[in-house]
């Protein structure tokens, strides 16, 4: 069992608790012991990077420092936005000695250990599509019984690719490989690498909804039974804002949206109390019914 520092981020702590619960239940099955970081904060979600960029860098350095203090070489994330924010800060701190020194001096002044740059930030998706893919294949024994799943990557796990680098940002395949390994059928559609609109869904709802409808509509037309995403922000907009799309366009998509850990969790035989589908706005029942036949 490999030990990983685990940063769950804001949404998995609050409105998307089902992501945290299913991740914790699944991790040991694919070979990971998660060590949760206690005294960490929000990564800033791109908002602090924009409003107070110097503070953003310090907040993320603090998270990385506490991850390093666990003795783990990997900090695991379950959110695209956390992944970009932490990887960007980590890259800057690892490469630029002067910058790291200045920020470490500040961390030390408020009682945080200095960060030595020994941690790698990796999304759970990259771990199970990469180093533990073989384990995943044996764990997913219950299978998805040919269920048609539309993978939705979202943005900040693919771009900017110079900071991500796990796969081709225009032709990613990690989610597809996982879906197939779990016995599902991966549906292909153009908008799977586009934006769900979440960052501006409160400030510019019309623009965001025009973005959001594309992947849902395309997945629907391609015959998907459900969509899966590695990001809780994408999950929230795809799941919760479908009702607004219905109000605006009259189309009732009723498209179930699964977190990555739930999709693999179903195939790995996690229980209802570990999957927490009841916390979704769009019912997942049609998927469960198809699987129980």
């Amino acid at each position, binding site marked *: 069992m490999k030990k990983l520092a685990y940063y769950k981020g804001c949404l998995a702590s609050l409105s998307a608790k089902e992501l945290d619960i299913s991740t914790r239940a699944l991790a040991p099955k694919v070979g990971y012991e998660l060590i949760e970081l206690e005294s960490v904060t929000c990564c800033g979600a791109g*908002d602090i990077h924009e409003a107070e960029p110097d503070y953003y860098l310090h907040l993320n350095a603090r998270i990385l420092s506490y991850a390093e203090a666990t003795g783990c070489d990997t900090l695991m994330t379950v959110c695209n936005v956390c992944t970009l924010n932490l990887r960007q800060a980590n890259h800057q701190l690892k490469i630029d000695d002067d910058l790291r020194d200045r920020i470490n001096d500040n961390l030390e002044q408020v009682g945080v250990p200095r960060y030595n740059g020994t941690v790698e930030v990796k999304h759970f998706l990259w771990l199970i599509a990469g180093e533990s893919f073989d384990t995943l294949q044996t764990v997913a024994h219950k299978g998805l019984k040919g269920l048609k799943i539309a993978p939705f990557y979202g943005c900040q796990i693919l771009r900017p690719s110079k900071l991500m680098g796990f796969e081709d940002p225009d032709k990613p395949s990690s989610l597809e490989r996982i879906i197939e390994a779990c016995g599902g059928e991966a549906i292909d559609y153009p908008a799977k690498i586009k934006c769900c609109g979440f960052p501006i869904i409160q*400030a510019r709802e019309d623009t965001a909804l025009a973005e959001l409808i594309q992947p849902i509509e395309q997945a629907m037309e391609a015959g998907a039974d459900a969509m899966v995403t590695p990001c809780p922000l994408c999950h929230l907009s795809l799941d919760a804002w479908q009702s607004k799309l219905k109000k605006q366009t009259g189309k009732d998509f009723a498209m179930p949206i699964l977190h990555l850990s739930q999709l693999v969790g179903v195939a790995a035989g996690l229980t209802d109390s570990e999957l927490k589908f009841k916390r979704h706005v769009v019912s997942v029942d049609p998927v469960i019914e198809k699987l129980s036949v």
Partner: protein
Amino acid sequence: MQVGLKIWRYDSKTGDRALREYEVDAPEEATLLDCLDLVKDKHDGSLAYRKSCRMMICGSCGMRMDGGAVLACRVRMYDVVQEGRVPVISAMGNLPIVKDLVVDMDPFWQKMRAVDPYLQPRYDQAQERENVVAQAKMDVIHKESLCINCGCCVSECNSMESDPDFLGPAALAKGMRFVGDPRDGATVERLEKYSEPHGLWDCTRCYFCNERCPKGVDPRDAIAKLGAEAMKNGIDRDMGAKHAKWFVTSAKTTGWLRETELVPKTQGIVSSIKEMKFAMGLALKGKVPPPFPPHVAAEVHESRALFDLVKTQGRDGAAGIVQGEKALGRIESHHEASEGRTPYDEADSAPRPFLPSEREESEGVTS
């Protein structure tokens, strides 16, 4: 080598549209642009595309290859041929197509014009001596100054696709080029203007612009710099700005995002009340975490103290982003392996030129 291309042909006058396949015999060093020249010379003289410098300076040959915007003169075809691919070439997105691979750049230039892309020094009389600016101050806009107006960033901009009035990555990066210029005197007016609807707070952070830009401008980062400068100057009335500010407040008070208060803090109380029905639907599923008792991170006093500390260190605004660019630039130019070396380190190299920053240091130029 034999290069296969599938090209989307289009005529806006007739509306005819067809995907045509071509094969040309090209030298191994050929670029996509070279291959298009061969198609035009040897197969079909009616193929329309723009080109000029052939060396990534003029920004004329922006087009899509397999759905992603590229400069045709930058793409070497050798690897594509080795992979056995026959790429699909089409016109850039988010701009009207005139013919084949030629787009109408008028909407692009209109947005460029809208950000007043020229220096506004705002002095009444010419200064007595030349206004020499320290290199460090120009470094703030180094990346934005690299833009060649090719439109590749605009092509896949997700916000612009949904809102054609969005100023977009190229124009906003140009705006930052002047906001960050120490010689410009219109900073506040610019930031007010760029903060209006369809401006900087309309960016959906899809990062397609950074991915596509062939010159390393990183327009999304330029937009973040504009946001940071707007905040620094107290221009924060837009809902996008309020949204961003609430994350800062959350981080320094409870550590974690105060999710439930985010809506009223962004949209105001009146709009939030209109959202009550929607919010109730979410609350039933546990998607509206109660704000009390707040979800407080352990040792949150550290993140509060960090905020107070960094605010005394003068890296507000764009400077907070610029300080990380040195490290980010290293990925692009793959400098890690040859760190610290310059072309002048070799024994038989030419003498090292005199750099402006050194002149400034030696002469004490500070402006």
